[in-house]
């Protein structure tokens, strides 16, 4: 390794680096709806990631708790990564992406068991933002088409229509008009 100056003004350059063992691993990665089957290993040059026979040479540097600078085949990318439950929120070029990384073996087992990566489909409608419930436009037992307005939430002085993400029947409504809700509060369950 090249010897580096420890004089002030250049210390950043020795901090925050990440080391890793010389192993070789295979992962299944899902970015939004796209799946990648990737092998990662280390060579003298840095990391090598292989996907469908194509190799990428990658160097990584941690800039802060959640921020990384990647150099992929010389291309620079600044990436924010935060863990959000069982997935990662990856923020890159102004785009937030939901990313799931599974070791290949686990993903195989899961697939053979016929399970989706997300587990059973979520039938609960949640508040996409904090706000005030203005009205509920449906009643329990009512059948709804996809896109039907279920509930109206006021936030930032705008009325926001919460629509049915899929067709179904209203099973239960958890909120009343005039009620304040937090982000991700349960609003309604469809079935």
């Amino acid at each position, binding site marked *: 390794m090249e010897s580096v100056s420890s004089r002030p003004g250049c210390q950043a350059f020795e901090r*925050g680096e990440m080391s890793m063992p010389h192993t070789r691993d295979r*992962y299944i990665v899902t970015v939004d709806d796209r799946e990648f089957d990737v092998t990662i290993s280390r060579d003298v040059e840095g990391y090598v990631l292989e996907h469908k026979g194509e190799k990428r040479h990658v160097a990584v540097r941690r800039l802060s708790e959640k921020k990384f600078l*990647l150099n992929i085949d010389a291309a620079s990318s600044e990436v924010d990564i935060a863990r959000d439950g069982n997935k990662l929120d990856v*923020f890159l070029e102004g785009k937030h992406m939901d990313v799931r*990384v599974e070791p290949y073996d686990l993903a195989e087992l899961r697939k053979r068991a016929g399970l989706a990566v997300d587990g059973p489909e979520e039938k609960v409608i949640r508040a996409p933002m904090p706000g005030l419930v203005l009205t509920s436009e449906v009643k329990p037992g009512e059948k709804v088409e996809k896109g039907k307005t279920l509930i109206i939430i006021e936030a930032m002085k705008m009325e926001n229509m919460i629509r049915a993400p899929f067709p179904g029947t209203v099973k239960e409504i958890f909120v009343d008009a005039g009620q304040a809700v937090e982000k991700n509060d349960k609003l309604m369950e469809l079935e």
Partner: protein
Amino acid sequence: MTTPITKILVANRGEIAIRVIRACRDAKITSVAIYSGCDDTAYHVRLADEAYWVGPAPSRDSYLNQRRIIEVAKISGAQAIHPGYGFLAENAAFAKLCEDSGIIFIGPKSETIALLGDKLEARRTAIKAGLPVVPGTDFDITDMSQVKQNAQEIGFPILVKAAAGGGGKGMRVVRADDPLEESIASAVREAGSAFGDGRVYFERYLERPRHVEIQILADMHGNAIHLGERECSVQRRHQKVIEESPSPIMTEELRSRMGKAAVDIVKESGYIGAGTVEFLVDQDRSFYFLEVNTRLQVEHPVTEMVTGIDIVREQFRIAEGQELSFRQEDVRPYGHAIECRIYAEDPHQDFMPSTGTITEYREPAGPGIRIDSGVLSGSEIPIYYDPIIAKLVIWGRTREEAMERTLRAVMEYRISGVHTTLDFACAVMRSRGFILGDYATDFIDREFPKRDFVCRDATVEERAAIAAILYEHLSRHKVTTTMARTPQDDSGWKAYHRARGVRRLNGGR
């Protein structure tokens, strides 16, 4: 007779409060900020010379708390109040309260605001001044049993508008087979919540008009000048999101006719101050009076960029009783400006507001870029107010250069923690309709029927996958990143690049 102003209370928050505070600094006027319970460390509070609490977070208790604001003006010794846009900017009662309290309201006289703020009165004034208007009702809707008939008389599609309205709030397009009553009820509720005045009325909805507006300035000495137009046809939820000047459809001849029309209604209404006369322009380049906005507009910087004139400082001059600092013939627009409003909204989720903390905020810079923003890293986007984060205003010698720079700026901008409309702005700059300048108020529906504002590099998902794998792989192998400086400790960053030098790569983007 002029009254020098040495201290101004800025009765607003966010980017527009900051815009006015900056103009105060330039003019060597002391600025007084006000803030609600949730804004006590907001950027406008930090930048102002003085700051006073005016009430709890909800705007009716703070930024709309008229008595308290007047009280603070008196306590602080401010001679004038600048209302910004929104909140009390077009509230005639507040302007009157200022006048009665011996405080200069930086805007038109209260009776002018009342006259033009009532959209129906404004129509009548326009007709009197000889301006063409869109067909519509000249009464507000009170009898819900009559609405179907009223609508049919005007002819579908109709546009339900709030009489006290502005900013697209309380506005609904209703087509022949839409549920008319539901739309009206919703518009009434929204208008009531936004303006405290639920009156709505109908206008014929022009299918593909362009929304073009003329900036005007009028002083107390009878000088009324226009600063050319802004094209504001790119809208979502009937609210402008991207504006530009000059308008791609503008000709010298049309500009001078529209400019004259704008000055005519200004003179007819005895208007004093900065204002905007909005028009709809149809495909034959016929124009129709829409309304007068008796305030500083969100998009005023577009005009500032092409004319070089500081509209807020001209407002100060007018309020002091001075003459405008230039004449009509001195206004010679140069180059092209585009404004993209950056909202905390998710364009992929029907522009749903996105609240939370801005964990990182880094603005683009370089030639031709002006950013009027209201936030810093760590700022929160509260649910109580408009979710605007910033205005990205770009100047270029040509429209093409302005678009190139806008794209660059959008790519360079980093806002994490909340969703933003940056992706949308990027997609617009790359859309055929915008590039050709061939668009109208139905721009989004025509250009993005599926709301697929995809804009990024094709490799972005692959790069996200690589980042995520490295992140998980390193966590899985229990590698901490703080234990640096062991001899093997190496990110590959340097070794990689030393080796890279010796052979040709395939990759890159």
